[in-house]
């Protein structure tokens, strides 16, 4: 399959680059990704120069209604790049499934690690880690300042008319539970608790949608790029601000509540506000933290259904169904912290 993949990719690149005799000298599957595969592609041109790219290809089925198509994601990355957000430069995209069996996009390879545990543990990244809260705060402010009217961003999902971002987000979770056909009282309780505490959001903004460790490329020099824009949408800035602190992406450093790092979230919030971000609404961040865990609890169940349906057979996907309980427990713990009955 690999040889065929290489052949078809070479033909595609020759065509889009208008270069006969381009030579794919390296093609390696990169670790990570349950809904997408990433490949490292090294291309040697006839003039002897080489270029290294990352190709991201959809797997057979993708859950999440909200997930963007490859061309939409490509445009979001392009808009982010032109607004000075640190992203790997996007190169091409292809929505034609017959080229490589699924839509894909190609961007520049950026050296560094995006693997969460490595980012938190590698000794050579100690200085990079110190700078991250401020760098990430500043980057997020730039993302939230993107112009929604920009042509590249016009197709982003937005809350339906008359719905606030919180209403929209809860309606999507309710629909996802219905689609799965599960009757899980913990999820129902979480939804109901959230429905009574929806924060107002006067100005919905462009969100990354999955702003957390795992989606940041870090080198000893610091942040090199923000990746994985498939969940970008228009919503409450507090959703992104909450995402980075969700327990799962602290990688077993649960007591370090800002992304498993020793810094406090306040450093990150300050950098965000100083760089022109919206005033941080702590109560809204608390709401979106509960929502974030609810969302992942549901996503885990949905991922296991991909295996169970027979479309994407994988022990990893199957196992995620039982991991849902971790997010459910964290959701309940956060609700307890805020008060099960705080409204009475």
């Amino acid at each position, binding site marked *: 399959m690999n040889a065929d993949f290489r052949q078809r990719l070479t033909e595609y690149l020759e065509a889009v680059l208008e270069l006969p005799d381009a030579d794919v000298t390296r093609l390696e*599957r990169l*670790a990570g990704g349950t809904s997408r595969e990433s490949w490292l592609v090294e291309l040697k041109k006839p003039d002897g120069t080489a270029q290294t790219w990352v190709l991201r290809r959809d797997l057979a089925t993708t859950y999440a209604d909200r997930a963007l198509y490859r061309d939409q994601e490509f445009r979001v990355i392009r808009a982010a790049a032109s607004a000075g957000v640190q992203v790997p430069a996007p190169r091409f995209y292809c929505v034609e499934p017959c080229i490589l069996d699924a839509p894909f996009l190609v961007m520049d390879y950026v050296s560094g690690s995006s693997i969460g545990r490595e980012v938190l543990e590698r000794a050579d990244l100690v200085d990079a880690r110190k700078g991250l809260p401020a760098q990430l705060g500043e980057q997020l402010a730039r993302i939230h300042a993107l112009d929604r009217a920009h042509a590249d961003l016009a197709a982003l999902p937005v809350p339906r008319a008359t719905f606030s971002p919180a209403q929209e987000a809860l309606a999507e979770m309710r629909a996802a539970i219905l689609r799965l056909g599960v*009757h*899980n*009282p*913990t999820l*129902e*309780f979480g939804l*109901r608790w959230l429905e009574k505490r929806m924060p107002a959001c006067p100005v919905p903004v462009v969100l990354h949608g999955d702003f957390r460790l795992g989606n940041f490329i870090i080198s000893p020099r610091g942040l090199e790029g923000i990746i994985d824009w498939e969940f970008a949408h228009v919503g409450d800035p507090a959703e992104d601000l909450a995402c980075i602190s969700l327990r799962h992406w602290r990688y*077993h450093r*649960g*007591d370090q509540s800002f992304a498993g790092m020793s810094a406090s979230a306040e450093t990150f919030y300050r950098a965000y506000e100083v760089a022109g971000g919206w005033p941080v609404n702590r109560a809204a961040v608390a709401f979106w933290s509960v929502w974030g865990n609810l969302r992942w609890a549901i996503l885990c169940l949905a991922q296991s259904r991909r295996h169970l349906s027979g479309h994407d057979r*994988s*022990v*990893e996907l*199957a*196992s995620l169904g*039982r*991991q849902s*309980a*971790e997010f*459910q*427990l964290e959701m*309940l*713990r956060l*609700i*307890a912290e805020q008060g*099960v*009955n705080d409204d*009475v």
Partner: protein
Amino acid sequence: MYDRPTLEELLAAVHFYVQERVQPAVAGDARLAEETRITGEAIALVLRQLRAGVEPLRAEWQRLDYVLGRSVPFPADPNDAEDGLRERERKLCEWINAGLYDLPARRAALFEHLMLNVRAQLEIANPSFLEELAQEDQNRPL
């Protein structure tokens, strides 16, 4: 009667094979290594659930008696327990959505029930996650 190994013993042997034989052999392939690690964990989960038997289901059933406010005998045939639990959980979901647990005392009782249920699930699915949380709560400054 089946000859030994028992189901549990046989599965433990498979677990040993995956962890001790396959895992080192796939160390050079990050993707395979990760999938093998997950496979080992999945087998460990099945072993825990086999060993726990019907007791966690019975405990959940009794908690549901309390939170639903009606006592129903636990199915004589444990094979029916899961179907029965599913039906009772569906009922509980309906009631939550109908607002039957919106009063503070009832909501607190429901919350307690959900907390115990999720923790019981994790005793099977990932006990080390519960240990991590316990450790963290212990170290938390008062």
